[in-house]
């Protein structure tokens, strides 16, 4: 059950151009920094990236956008990124925008063997175009399908050699549901521990959802909006 890889380079060795990736994180919080850096280094392109956001111009997924490695983004919110907006409006980048709750649930569904479900989100909007509408309890719902990825890249706080993960604060966000939906899920963690060190009653992502794990380095953990009170 030892799933440990040495570093990002070794863990993502078989990610190829044209593949579909899920990347955890909300804004720049809880993103797989090491894997993203290695994808830039590796130069794979034509990627389809499923991620709630697209990073900022010079960090997170913005780094892959700069190098034009992304063919298509599937996201819910892509503000805060001028290069993204430029590529999208010029037609260089395909973009599929999805309500945030539907995005999360579609990832969970992909990992849970649920091919489709009904949700009220997006009825009567562009999002519903071409989708089946059905009324439940007199309220319209649309049918949304499961999402899958060749690789899911997630970032956790601590993880053990079996792939069990815990997340810190709101860095959890999309990471647990994406971990479920990857054909191969790669977890990068701030601290790699021995099996038995994580409390089994309080594991966030059970190891069964994780195929590879490595201890990341040099986390920048950039803050997008530093807001504070004076003491």
């Amino acid at each position, binding site marked *: 059950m030892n799933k440990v890889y040495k570093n990002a380079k070794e863990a993502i060795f078989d990610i190829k151009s044209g593949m579909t990736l899920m990347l955890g994180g909300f804004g720049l919080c809880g993103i797989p920094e090491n894997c993203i850096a290695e994808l830039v280094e590796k130069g794979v392109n034509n990627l389809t990236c499923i991620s709630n956001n697209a990073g900022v111009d010079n960090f997170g997924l913005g780094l892959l956008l700069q190098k034009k490695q992304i063919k298509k983004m599937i996201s819910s919110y892509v503000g805060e990124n001028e290069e993204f907006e430029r590529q999208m409006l010029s037609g260089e980048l395909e973009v599929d925008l999805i309500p945030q709750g*539907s995005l999360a649930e579609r990832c969970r569904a992909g990992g849970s063997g649920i091919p489709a479900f009904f949700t009220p989100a997006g009825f009567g*909007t562009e999002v519903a175009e071409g989708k089946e509408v059905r009324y439940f309890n007199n309220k319209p719902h649309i049918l949304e399908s499961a999402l899958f990825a060749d690789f899911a890249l997630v970032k956790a706080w601590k993880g053990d050699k079996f792939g069990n993960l815990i997340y810190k604060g*709101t860095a*959890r966000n999309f990471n647990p*549901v994406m971990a479920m939906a990857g054909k191969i899920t790669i977890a990068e963690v701030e601290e790699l521990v021995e099996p038995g060190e994580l409390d089994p009653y309080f594991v966030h992502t059970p190891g069964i959802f994780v195929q590879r794990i490595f201890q990341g380095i040099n986390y920048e953990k950039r*803050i997008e909006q530093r807001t504070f009170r004076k*003491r």
Partner: protein
Amino acid sequence: MLNKNQIAQRIAQELRNGWYVNLGIGIPTLVANYVPKGVEVEFQSENGILGMGPFPYEGDEDADMINAGKQTVTLLPGASVFDSATSFAMIRGKHVQLTVLGAMEVSQNGDIANWKIPGKMVKGMGGAMDLVASADNIIVAMMHTNREGESKLLKSCSLPLTGVACVKKIVSNLAVLDVTEHGFKLIERAPGVSVEEIVNATEGNLIVEGEIPEMSF
């Protein structure tokens, strides 16, 4: 005419004890600063917080603790943190009693548009479509008119919709309005704003019945 803080303050009067409340980015975020005395509410942030507190003290900012606006925040005692699917289970499952969000346009039947200007601006809907499709109680915080002075309270929205027939109440810089079967119903005027000004600033059908009180804080 209300400024942004006053809009937030007026909305805060709608809070009721024991409610779970989701505040959108912008003016709605300010509502948290005006919770009336004696009213206990918990704020939900759709990136995965229940019991969101104020900004941290300078130097205590934690990159791993942000709200849906990507601002560094804190947790209050009794808070909990969870993943995005659980967060939207709360929202979609109607466990959140009030949603406050901004809008670019609202129509007289309660349609809302706030995520896209075709060919010009596409930020995405974020969690707004889930919020407006599910919440029973939606208050929109917005400016009554755009920079050109054109009404944003319309007969029908011109921009791509975020949700249909969902907005229940609007608090603008000029007025408080309910969205009813027959259109916008004027409830209160902002201090110093006349009914006529509100009529002129509202393109959609506006119902004015009897004396319209000035709002008080």
